[in-house]
Structure formats: structure tokens, C-alpha cells
């Protein structure tokens, strides 16, 4: 899943630096992702993983790193499996 997330951030996050060089825990906003670009990342993630982020997850902290995005997606998928 990490590689897919990286690819989506690469395409939609408009980072000035190469995503490949960023560790999973790196702060994407500090790396230059704007609020506007982060919305595009969220839309692309929803589309790619066929999920919908609920409002409680639509916060800066959820999308601030590859690791936090992965944790959120894992949680959403677990919920979907339970249902």
C-alpha cells in the first residue's frame, strides 16, 4: 500500500522535492504540500482505494505523512471488512 500512496502523492501532492527521498514519517506539509494540493491527494486516494474519508479523518494530522495516511486507510478498510 505504501508504494501506491507514494505514487499518488508524487502525482497530486506537487512537492518541490522527490517523494522517493522522503521517509514514510516525513511531514508532507513541511516538505511543501499545500492545503490545496492535499485536497487533490485526498480525492485521488479515495478514488484509488475506493474509500471515503469521513469528516473526522479530514484533518491535517491524518494527511501529514505517508505513514499516517496508511494508518487511516488501514483503519477504513478494517471497518469496511467488519461491515
Amino acid at each position, binding site marked *: 500500500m505504501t508504494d501506491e500512496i507514494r505514487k499518488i502523492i508524487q502525482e497530486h501532492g506537487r512537492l518541490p522535492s522527490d517523494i522517493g527521498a522522503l521517509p514514510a514519517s516525513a511531514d508532507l*506539509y513541511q*516538505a511543501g*504540500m*499545500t492545503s*490545496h494540493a492535499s*485536497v487533490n491527494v485526498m480525492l485521488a486516494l479515495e478514488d484509488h482505494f475506493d474509500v471515503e474519508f469521513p469528516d*473526522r479523518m479530514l*484533518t491535517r494530522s491524518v494527511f501529514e505523512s505517508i505513514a499516517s495516511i496508511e494508518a487511516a486507510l488501514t483503519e477504513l478498510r478494517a471497518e469496511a471488512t467488519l461491515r
Partner: protein
Amino acid sequence: MSIAVDRDQTFLDTIARIAEEVAAPNAGEVDRDARFPAETIQALRDERALSAFVPAELGGGGVGLETIAAACFQLGRRCGASAMVFAMHQIEVISIARHLEDAGWFEDYLRAVAAEQRLIASVTSEIGTGGDMSRSVAALTPGSDGLLGFEKQAPTVSYGQYADDLFVTLRRGPDAEPSDQVVALARKEQITLEQTGTWDPLGMRGTCSPGYVVRAEILPEQVLPTPFPRVSAESMVPVSHILWSHLWLGIATDAFDRARAFVRAAAKRNPGEPPPVAVRLSHLMSDLSLLRAEVGSGLDEFVAASAEPGRERLSTMAMALRFNNLKIAASEQAPRVCQGALGVCGIVGFKNDTPFSVGRHLRDTMSACLMVANERIHQTNASLLLIAKDV
């Protein structure tokens, strides 16, 4: 009555007195001469109002946000510029106090605000960012003796010349991205201000807000440890919109009161049938009620979300949209009410020297849609609406 309610009410009584006895009689001159409302700010200092929100254990008044908002409303009814200076100072105090996180320098700083009644101005807007507060050009730059320097080109700094200290947004360092922002608090003796423009605006003239190049050298501990984006989302933006909208409501309420006084005077001259203009006043009251409801509910929702553990809901897009819409709605509705009051009063409202004059009210509230431009906020909202769910 609990001690807290008692304390907040006493504070509000004091503010109402200052508004009536000091702000009101000077409002005309402050507006005409575009001069700082020095006597009102001094009266607020004398009553320790500048540290009203500072926690009691740090020597402040310890009053709640609802009370600060009510104070902005009271001052707004008598002098919009005085209310705006008070509101902007409180926004900086509140933004610091809600994000102390054991930052020792800032605790000491709030003690100094209380002891010395220091006035804080903000330097958040910047040339080259297109009005986007979530980006900075100026950066903290390591200098000599372990100090951090910066130079920021600010298009407006309200009451910058009269402030003791400046609350400045900056990039974290020379290599940081524009969105990697921190807040620094620079003290007067560390700052040089080079004025870059004049100040002869349409309204809010007493805020004295020309442009400046702001230069300072500060200690590393004068940078708030909490990153600015978090301070902004959880406190600065919503609190700004709440306090501004309260003072705009105050200005609009006084315009309505003047229109009502005009209609009453007309009714007394011709007892019997209500004057035709009384119907216009009724329409105006509907407009004012809408404004009052939006301003009140915005405050209530913020207070409720702030009371939740971790304040996490405040960081959601739904809440960002909520408080952005408070700003847009209030900034559009307040001048509408003032213009309606002008329609009721007619020529005596248009003239600047009658008891029914509402020109200052109209001009002051016309600044509302510009301070953080509504179109910029709409752009942000448009983006958030693509992804937010329950709004």
C-alpha cells in the same frame, strides 16, 4: 452566581463603561483624523483589559472567550476602530494562551502582558503570497550570537506603530517551504519598522494600518513551539472570525439603533399612524436578526468544539468551512444592515454630524469583506468542498 460568572460580568460592565464614556465621544475624531484611539486603549490598559484572557495563574483576568467576544460587540457599538484594535490584540493573546504547551518563554511573556498591559499587533499578511496566510516568504535566519533574524514585507500592520510587540508568521528557516510556518513574538526593542505606505482609507481609519518592512532579531525561544498551521486552524482563524464578526455586529447594531431612534422621533412628531419608514425599520430588523444569529451560533459551536478533549474537531475541514462561512456571512451582512439604516434615516443619516449619522458605520463595515478577502476564502472553501462530507 458563580465566581467566574461574576468576574466575567464585572469585566463586561467595565468594557461597557469605557465604550460609553471614552470610545464613543472620541469615535468621530478618531475616524475623521485617522488617528489611533489612544485614550480608549489607555482606559482598557487602566482596567487591565489587555490581559483579560490571560489565565489567572499567569496574572491575567481569566475571563472566557464568550466574554471577550461580548466585549468586542460592546466596543464595536461605540467605535469600530477601537473594537478592532482590541479584537486583534485579543486574537494574538488567545492564540498564544491556547498553545502554550509548557513553552516557558511564552508563559513569562503572558505574565508581562498582564503586568505591563503590553499591546500586541500582528504581522501575518505578506507581499508575494497573494493574500494566502498559510504561506510565508520571510524566513527565520540564524544570525550572530545565536539570534534569529527576519525581514518581512507587510502590506498592512494594524496599529503597528503603537504596539509593544509583534506576532509574526514566518518560514521556519531559510530552506523551509512556504507552508512550513512558525509564529514568532518579537518585542518592541528588538524591532525596526520602516513604513512603506500611507494610511488614508475609506473606513476603520483609527486602526492606523499602513504597510511596513518589519525587521527584527529574536531569541530562538521566542518562536512558539506549536507549528503555525495548528495554531491557525485551532485558534487564530476561528477566533479572528468570531471576534471580528462580533464587532461588526456591534457596529451594525448601533446603525440599527440610530435608525430606530430616527423612526421614534418621526412617530413622536406625528402621533397616530406609524410613519411609513417604520416598515423599512422592520425589514432592517430581520437583516440584523440574521446577522446576530450567525454570529452567536458561530461562537457557540467554537466553544463547544474547544471543550472537547484534544480539540480534534477544530482541525476538520467541516469546521474550517464553518468558520470561513461565519466570516463571509457576517462581513456581507453587516454593511447591508448599515446601508439599510441609511435608507431609513435618509439625508440625516447621510450627513456626518447628526445623531442619526451612519456613514462611519457603513464605511467601517465595508472593510469586513477585505480583511482576509472573501474571494480568497471562497477559493479555499471551493477546494475543501470537493472532499468534506457533512457540511
